[in-house]
């Protein structure tokens, strides 16, 4: 049996347009909050796991070197991972392996992004290979809109029905963000607002899309021994997996999306989950685009394939439902990409320790956190629980 790891502290910044701080200051805001939350001293942190989006987006090469001091990493072991949108989850996994390897007892995970400082879509356009795909797969919305079309076509679903389900997700998540003091977009929208907002890439409309945000997140992982000494509730890492599929967009099925299915399946196995809809109490699904969230519900086994609209129509995944998704407002309302995946983990940890404030799902014991990245290529999952 491998060594166990737990989340003992989380910190996040107020997200939004943060012209009041530079990267280093923004990161320190989250790190300081996490250290305070865990009730430890910076000296207790033995190693640091860092990551960000492609570094052209931050405009600093190897930005772990730039952020080192803000992450209290001076004189300590520091590793950097970078896996595009899924990086936040990759950081959480990296930090967990620091613990489960037996090398460390307390590790800080940090992710951050200032999207208002760079050219996010310009950078993301260069994720696609330079020879074949870059000419037509540029930026995120085009890719995910193609996926939405593929979804409707595959199951022969009336466009109006899928449109309505996606809009309902948007309304729900915007409502949720009102309860999250850290969220970037905090306003209510109506079904009409969503369905009449301007087209970004058909069928995706403005209110189906996440914002560009500035923000940072820090999470402290500890060994079983250290976590038990905390004398309070911690979030145990119950399962985690990551999977990617082919680079070329046309090579893989993005509706019955194997990378998402495999990532979830193995994480469930580790966590001993056989019926995710029943056994999970809350899920922080990575949802930069409303339509994509429908696909994830199916790939994660919340419902059968082609049935995600029912899940929304029946309110299962909405507030007050059987398996509420993104009570934080999710990516749809807050998206500092390099931190976004780690925020899902942090929010899941807050839920299972009963510390999520106004966005708390009552009695949540087991939570799923998810992130997606690449040119619609990578998926990572972490399951956290209140019991070891």
């Amino acid at each position: 049996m491998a060594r166990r790891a737990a989340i003992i502290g989380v910190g996040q910044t107020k997200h939004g347009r943060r012209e009041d701080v530079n990267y280093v200051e923004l990161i320190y805001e989250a790190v300081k909050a996490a250290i305070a939350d865990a009730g430890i001293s910076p000296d207790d942190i033995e190693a640091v796991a860092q990551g960000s989006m492609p570094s052209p987006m931050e405009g600093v090469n190897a930005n772990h070197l730039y952020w080192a001091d803000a992450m209290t990493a001076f004189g300590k072991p520091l590793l950097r991972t970078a896996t595009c949108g899924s990086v936040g989850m990759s950081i959480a996994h990296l930090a967990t392996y620091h613990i489960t390897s037996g090398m460390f007892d307390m590790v800080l995970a940090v992710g951050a992004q200032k999207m208002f400082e760079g050219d996010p879509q310009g950078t993301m356009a260069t994720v696609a290979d330079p020879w074949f795909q870059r000419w037509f797969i540029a930026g995120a919305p085009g890719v995910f809109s193609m996926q939405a079309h593929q979804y409707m076509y595959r199951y022969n679903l009336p466009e109006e029905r899928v449109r309505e389900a996606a809009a309902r997700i948007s309304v729900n998540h915007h409502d949720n963000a009102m309860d999250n003091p850290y969220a970037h977009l905090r306003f209510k929208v109506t079904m009409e607002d969503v369905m009449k907002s301007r087209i970004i890439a058909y069928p995706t409309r403005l209110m189906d899309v996440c914002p560009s945000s500035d923000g940072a997140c820090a999470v402290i992982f500890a060994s079983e021994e250290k976590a038990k000494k905390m004398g309070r509730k911690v979030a145990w890492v119950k399962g985690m997996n990551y999977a990617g599929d082919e680079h070329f967009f046309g090579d893989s099925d993005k509706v019955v999306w194997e990378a998402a299915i495999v990532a979830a399946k193995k994480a469930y196995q580790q966590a001993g989950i056989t019926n995710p809809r029943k056994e999970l109490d809350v899920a922080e699904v990575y949802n930069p685009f409303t339509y994509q969230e429908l696909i994830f519900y199916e790939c994660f086994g919340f419902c059968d394939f082609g049935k995600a609209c029912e899940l929304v129509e029946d309110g299962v995944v909405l507030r007050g439902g059987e398996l509420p998704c993104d009570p934080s407002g999710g990516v749809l309302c807050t998206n500092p990409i390099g931190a976004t995946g780690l925020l899902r983990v942090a929010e899941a940890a807050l839920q299972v320790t009963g510390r999520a404030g106004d966005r708390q799902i009552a009695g949540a014991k087991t939570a799923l956190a998810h992130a997606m990245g690449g040119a619609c290529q990578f998926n990572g999952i972490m399951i956290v629980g209140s019991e070891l």
Partner: protein
Amino acid sequence: MTNRVAIVAVEQLGPEECANDNVRDLTFRVSKNLLNQVGLKREDVGTIVSSSSDFWQGISCSNSVYYDALGAYLKNSSKTEEDGAFAFIYGAMRIMSGHYDTCIVHAITKGSEIPGLSTLTNLYADPFFQRPIGLDDVSTAALQAMLYMNKYKITEEQAAKVVVKNLGNALDNPYAHKKGKFSVEDVLKSRTMAYPIKELDCATYSDGTCALLLTSEEKAKKMTKNPVWLRGMGWCVDHQFFGDRDLLDGALRKAARMAYATAGIKSPSKEINVAEICEPYSFQELLYYEQLGFCGEGEGGKFIDKGNTTMKGKLPVNPSGGVLAHNPYVARGLLRIAEAALQLMGKAEKHQVDGVKTALAHSTHGLAGQHHSVVILGK
């Protein structure tokens, strides 16, 4: 260390081969060759960790383009960025955790396809204070060299001896990019890049890739009679702001201390039989002798004067030619580990050192070595 980690196979592709193909094809070849060596199929591999960099590859999310080519389709595969040694460290931790019993670690850079070293390393600096001054790899190394030379009376001739040794050693390494018989005078006469660093004191800019297969103890014993064991590893980062740093006593001492502690090494110069040191600038090899504890403080120059680190010396350093001979930027750290492993396997052919039982591999990146890692391997 908890679960033991073994290196069972090493594969690298040389600069000529790398010049003629793209990152995706090269990645496929290096990982396929690696698995062929031990008769493994892609399906048999547990996990994969690669290392590349978006800036050093010119492609954002640099592992996206080669993910499936590496054999990672539907596998739990991650990417560490900027230093191939990171991939090794992370891959080893994945095995130590007991989650996986096989792991490919891989690194790649094609220096021929991207902007120059100065441009990309200037981007290491923070955008407000240090970048506008023009700090880059060579200018910061020159400042470090001046400090080192002034404080300990290290000479340009002593630094030049590193070049003579390493480029000479590289003649016996078919994978090295730059090699030849040079004299100390050749080095001193080459044009100045940033005083006191001359052109031959600087690493070249290469294309290269390598991959290692790591396994658990149980798997290793089934797969090979001759595994190489990971005995210890340590890594450490220094401050970002150049003026905040002690350029002669930085992160390397701490990284080495951690590695030696895990490996149980008390007297490095006696217990280590061969070392692969990452020396993008010749004088740094001398400085790193000291920080790795091969000799006392300020004694790096004397250490090479005595010939201790030549192929026939008591502690040969960089029998492969090191980074001065071959510098595929992100891959260079993993190449040091690969070369150290080859020495222990007895597979280093013409640059084999006799009787190697313990080997050290070092890697660094960042301005004047902001980040260092040290890996100790043994038989």
